Structure formats: C-alpha cells, structure tokens
C-alpha cells in the first residue's frame, strides 16, 4: 500500500477558471450562431430567387389589350376566300379610324406600332372563323405591342427623361388618349398558355413547350417505368450474388451520378447519328431522359421492394405459391405506392432537365405545337432557355413567368408524390 496524496482540489470559482469557462461557452454560442446564420443564408437565397422571379414574372400573367373596331370591307377581304384577304390594310384602316385626327403618314405609322405585329393574323383568324362579319364592323381586343404593354404595366417609368425610355413622349401621348377613351384593358393572359412561341413577346406563349414536355414525359414514362421495375425485381429478388450482379449494382449507382450532358452526347451520337432518328423530336428526347431516370427508377423500386416484410413472402410461399407468384401477387402490389411515388419524383426531375435536350436540338424556334412524338418540339425548360437568350426586353418577364409555370408543375408533381406516400404508405 502506497500513500496517495489527495490532489489539490481545483478551484472552479477562481478568475482564471471563470475566464476559461466563459471562453468555452462563447465558442459554443459562436458555433450555434454560425449554424443559424448558414441556414438563414440558404433559406434567404431561396427567398431571393423566388422573389426575383415573382417580381419580374408576375406582369406576364396579364396582357395589355386594346379594343379596336375593325371593318372587314369586301374590298380587302374577298367573301369567297376570306383567308387570302389583305388584313394589313384592314388593320391600318382601323388605326386610322382610331386616331381620326392624325393625317401625317409618319405619325400614323407610329400609331399602328401600338398594336401588336400579329394583329393582322388575329383579325384573319377571327374573320375566317366568323365569315358572316365580312362587310361589317366588329370590335376585337388586340394585344398591345411589347413597349406599350410594359408602359401600361408600369415597368417603363413615365417620369424618366425621354432619352432614357424606350417609348417617346409622342408615343405615350397617343397611348394616353386611348387610355382616356377607356379602350385599354389588362385581362388575364390566356395567351401565355394557349399560344405557341413567337418572335413578338406579347404573342409568345407556352403551348408548344407544354405539349412537347408532355410527349417527352410520356415517352420517358413508357420506357423507364416497365424497364426500371423489371430490372429492379430481377436485381432484388432473383439475381444470384456474384461478381456480375455486383458490377451491375455499382454501375447503376454510378450511372445515377453521371452528368446529364453526357447523356445528351450519347443521344446525339447513338440515336441521331447511328439510328438516324429525327433531330428535335420528343421521341429522342424521351429516350435520353428515360436512360437518365432509369437508375433512379431502379433504386427507388428496389428500396420499396425491400421494405415489404419477409413474413408476407414466407406466408405466400408457405401456401404453395411459386417465387414469381409471390412477387406478382403479393410483393409488387404492396410495393406499388412506393414505386409510384419514386416514379413521379423521377419524372419531375426529367421535366426540369435541360442540357441533354439542347444537344439533341430541342431548342428550335417553332410556331406551332408538335403533333406527335416524331415532330420537332421544344420543352418547358428549353423554352425558358430560348426566351432567356432573346434580346427583346419583353421576354424577361415572359421567361420568369415560364419559370413560375414550370415550378408550378414541379410543385404539383411533388405534392402528388407526397400525398400518395402519406395516403398509401404502410408501416410494418
């Protein structure tokens, strides 16, 4: 037995110990603060992103329209073939009627600039649809051209000095006379959803892009859903554990992390170059996107197959079902909610994908929606890219509006997935 001297008791209340403790607690609070600041920064950045999109995009959901009285005199519009009429003349007559006090041709040209460049086409479509108006007058709400649209929505500040504005004093005066006569209205912009793309911002809409994205997702779903489920069932339930199946597994995990543009290169080199499929077609885009979503589909399906408890398999095997019957009759039906949730999330990712579609030419300028999966088309994200690249100022708000529409679709799909999960998910 050795004598042990009791250590000198540590004086916790000494100034030195207090100072150390203070320092340590301060470090604790600092780390906590850094964490909170980081989270708030990240959320704040998301807020800035959404706020700047809403701030620039909300104006594109309404459209300045001007009520104009047109006269379809038979001289300009032949009654036997109304589509071939001279509708530019109809429009310029209408502008003259709108401003009877103007007789200078230069000033008149400025005045007709108030109406959209597509006004003649709008009148033509109306007259061909209603041939009975030939020879009569009728009033149509025609979109105002982009500068006046921006002026009316307050994007262009009327109080700025003239040389820093896109519209001159004279043009503002013309527009204000129309406002005073109550001809200007700003209804909801249905054209944003029902018009196809156009060079003129006030006429450009998303119809082509929405139809194109629909075809893309259809092809993607038809390919990646069955192939993904079949592959996942094989790998999860049937595959022997050996070097080959390990390789397949590693391969699928890595495929999920390959940059999307590489899939675009694959699509360009294989589907377009080797197989000669048409460029810009939703078929090729859908093939590329389905190759991209395939790994996600397989991973998700395997996870939901794995979550089915073994007791169900054993019960089915016990009453004499074959292995295939166990899976087809019991495991797969129970796993379907999880698989559907994963599928919707995978399709939502495919909907937002842009880069591979650029490489296979889905960024073409098209003025009508595609009629099928073999026809040239654009998609929502590529349409956003096209508009973001357009020099006209009016496309800035259109781009933001298109992004809001795309985000709307994504939120809808994800909400549906969350709903399905909560409604049908079972915990064992």
């Amino acid at each position: 037995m050795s004598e042990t001297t009791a250590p000198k008791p540590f004086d916790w209340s000494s100034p030195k110990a207090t100072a150390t403790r203070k320092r340590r607690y301060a470090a604790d609070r600092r780390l906590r603060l850094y964490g909170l600041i980081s989270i708030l920064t990240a959320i704040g950045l998301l807020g800035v992103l959404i706020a700047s999109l809403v701030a620039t995009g909300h104006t594109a959901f309404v459209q300045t329209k001007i009520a104009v009285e047109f006269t379809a005199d038979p001289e300009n519009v032949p009654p036997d073939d109304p589509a071939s009429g001279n509708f530019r003349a109809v429009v310029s007559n209408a502008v003259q009627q709108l401003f009877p006090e103007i007789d200078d041709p230069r000033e008149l040209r400025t005045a007709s600039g108030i109406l959209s460049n597509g006004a003649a086409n709008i009148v033509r479509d109306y007259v061909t649809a209603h041939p009975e108006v030939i020879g009569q007058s009728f009033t149509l709400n025609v979109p105002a051209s982009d500068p006046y649209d921006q002026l009316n929505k307050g994007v262009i500040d009327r109080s700025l000095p003239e040389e820093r504005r896109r519209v001159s004093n004279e043009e503002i005066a013309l527009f204000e006379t129309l406002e005073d006569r109550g001809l200007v209205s700003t209804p909801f912009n249905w054209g944003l959803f029902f018009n196809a793309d156009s060079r003129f911002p006030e006429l450009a809409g998303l119809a082509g892009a929405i139809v194109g994205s629909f075809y893309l997702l259809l092809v993607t779903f038809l390919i990646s859903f069955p192939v993904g489920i079949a592959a996942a069932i094989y790998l999860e339930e049937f595959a022997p554990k050996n070097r080959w199946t390990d390789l397949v597994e590693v391969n699928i995990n890595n495929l999920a992390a390959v940059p999307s543009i590489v899939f675009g290169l694959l699509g360009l080199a294989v589907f377009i170059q080797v197989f000669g499929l048409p460029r810009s077609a939703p078929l090729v885009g859908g093939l590329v996107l389905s190759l991209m979503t395939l790994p996600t589909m397989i991973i998700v399906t395997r996870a939901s197959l794995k979550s089915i408890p073994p007791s169900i398999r054993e019960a089915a095997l016990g009453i004499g079902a074959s292995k295939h019957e166990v899976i087809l009759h019991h495991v797969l039906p129970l796993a379907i909610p999880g698989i559907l949730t994963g599928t919707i999330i995978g399709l939502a990712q495919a909907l937002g994908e842009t880069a591979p579609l650029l490489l296979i030419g889905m960024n073409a300028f098209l003025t009508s929606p595609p009629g099928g999966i073999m026809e040239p088309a654009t998609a929502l994200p590529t349409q956003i890219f096209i508009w973001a690249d357009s020099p006209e100022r009016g496309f800035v708000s259109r781009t933001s509006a298109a992004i809001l529409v795309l985000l709307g679709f994504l939120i809808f799909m994800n909400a549906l997935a969350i709903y399905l999960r909560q409604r049908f998910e079972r915990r064992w």
Partner: protein
Amino acid sequence: MTGYLFLAILVLSLIAFYTGRRTASQFVAAHRNDVHSRPIYHGAFAAVWVGLPALVLVLLWLLFQGSIIDRLLLASLPASLTEGASASRLSLYLSEIKNVASGRIFSEPSPEVSAAAERYQRWQMIAQWAMVVVALAVAALALYITRARMTARFRARQGFERTLDIVMILSAVAAVLVTIGIIISLTYEAIQFFRLVPPHEFFFGLNWEPQIAIREDQVAGTGAFGAVPVFTGTLLIATIALLVAVPIGLFSAIYLVEFANDRFRGIVKPILEILAGVPTVVYGFFAVLTVAPAIRQAGGLLGISISPNSALAAGGVMGIMIIPFISSLSDDALRAVPQSMRDGSFAMGATRAETITRVLLPAALPGIVGGILLAASRAIGETMIVVMAAGLTATLTANPLEGVTTVTVQIVTLLIGDTAFDNPKTLSAFALGLVLFVVTLCLNVLALRIVRRYREKYE
C-alpha cells in the same frame, strides 16, 4: 400507321390470352386434376409469345429503317454527285431529298434530287407495309404455334415464368448497356478527334479557339484545340461553388443535427431540399437576371470593373445549388456517429462545440469528404448555370472577376446548330465529354467508396 400496328399487336395478344384461357378451361372440364397449370397461365403464355416477338421486331425495324434507307438513297445517287463529296455534303443531299419528298420545296430541285425524292417516298412506303406484314405474320404464326402446343399437361406456368425471367434479365442488362454505350460512343468520336488533333496538343495546349471554317468561304480562325484554359475555367468555377456551398452546408448540417429541435429540423430540412429540386435552367436565369448585375453594381461601388459573365456569378449560383448536397450528406455522416461517442465526450466535461469540433467532425470526416467529392463532381458536370451565366471565350486566368468558360459550356456551344461529324470542331466536344465523364466517374467511385467504408466502420 405505326400506332395502329402497335394496337393490332396488342389486340392479337389479347385474343391469344382469351383463347388460351378458354382452351385451358376446356382441358380442366375434360381432365379435372390432370391439368398442369391454371388456365390463366395458358392465356398469359400465349399472350406473351404472340405480343413480345412482334413488338421487338417492330421496334428494331423502326430503329434501323431510317439509316438503311439513307444508305440506299446515297448509293442510288449518280456517282457524279457523290464522288469525293464530304460527309456533310452528303447529309445535305439527304435532307434536301427528304424536304422535297415531304413537299417543302424552297427552290426548284435538280432532276437527280427529285428522282431520288420519288424513290425515297416509294421505299418508305414499301418499308412500312413490309413491316406491317412481317410483324402481323410473326404474331399470327406465334398464335398458331402456341395453340398447337397447348395440351392438358403443358407446363404453361413454367413457360410464362421463364419468359418473365428473360425480360427481367434483359432490363437489368439495359442499365449496363447504357454505360457501355456512353463509353463506346464517347471513345469512338474522341479517337476520331485525336486523329485530327494530336492528344498532347489537346491536353497541354494553352490556346482554345475551336471556331474553324466549316465551309470554304467562311472567315474564321484556323482552330486551336488546347484545352488547358477550359479545364482551369471549370476548376475555377467549381472551386468558387464549393467555397460557397461547403461552409453553408456544413454549418447548417451541424446546427440541424446537434442544436436544432425536431420541429425546427422538420421545417428547415424540406426547405433546404427545395434548393436541390429547382431545375438548373432556373438557377441559370437567376444568375443572369439578379446575381450578375448585383455583383457588377457592387464592383462598380468599389471601383472594380467586373465582367458581366464573371466566374464569381456563375460559381456563386452553382454554390447555392449544391448547398443541399453538402448539407444532407454531412447530416447523414454526423448522425451516423454513434451516440456513445457524444456521451463519452460530454462525460469528460466538453461543451457541445468542443464535442462537435474535436470528436464528431473527425469521426464524420470521411463521410463529409465523400459528400464534398460528390458535390464537386456535380459542380464540374453542371451545365445550364454556366451555359447561361459564364463566358464563351477561354481565358487562362485565376481571377474570379473575369469571364471563363467551362467544359460543359464548350460542349453545348460546339454542338448547338451545325453538327456534321467530320470536323474537329464537332468532334472536340466528344473529347471534352470523354474527359468530363472520366473525371466525374473517378470522383463518384472514390466518393462512394469512402462513404461506404465509413458506414461499415460504425455499423
């Protein structure tokens, strides 16, 4: 036309299903317990064997029809046109012929072309009808054979299940084929490129000016394919992105795991995940619309001139995009550290901060590093943000205020528009793609391996 064919095949296989099931029901009525499989399996067996072969045949036919007809068309053109013509010239002929055939005539076509257009229409017609006839014949033949094979003792269930196995194995193989397809197509085109431009020039050259003349009359540079400035630009932007994302993501994860209560966590985590779900084209537009002008203005206030497509704007916005990757992977890594290590540290009198920095972070480091590597691979392969916000000219600089270009930007700009596969300009995109694929693959394999090994350590 093709749609109706698919419908016809579907109808035939449905007929096969119902007749198969009916026949088997008759066996059951006649033989009672001697029937091997349930009637539904007889039906399913017949349906699968009537539908699948015809379907596969049609798909293969559609896949190859276009390129075979193109070959035949080119072979049928008079030698005076095709002799010594380049590949791009030939594909121009093809598209002209197709335009004429579909009635989109812009100028009076030459007699050779209009004759070829007529041939094209005729062949297209023949091919389509041949496909319909062959596919329906295959389906009908299969229907006949399966009917003939059906007896009471026929093992229809085994037959059907074996077919399902084949379908499932082929689907699993498809995932591997995608990887093989990527590797082969990229390598093939890259080898074509390296025949025109020696590899050492590509990997070590300091000058990147790929805009070469495609037609003889164009005025353009002679082309220089030294990719070093492109690589450094990519690294610069990815580094900026990581400098933004790693601190924010890591500190957020630390707060969420160690300080936050469950309610706060339940609200904040999904919000951070939203950042990962926003399409990249949206980030690209955000960079152009808001971030780049803001940075320029800030630079203007400080008296620094900043390029409108500075690496800072593109990299910063990319950093926002990868915050959730870092935070959720670090979150997983921190949570995987066993509670006993925390308890041990607290028992020694350490504060929370000391526990985190001295115990948890070192223990979770491999997982965090794996996450950062995955995020880096994401940043290198990210396309839309840099296409919209970064520059096009390759400058060799480390200054984040200047415009630089990246591998993905170059791939997109080289391949948008003119894509004839015989000039170094187009092919260089595939060489860049190969480099991109190999680098991201290495990063991913490394990261996954680190993460997995680390997970095993604590399980």
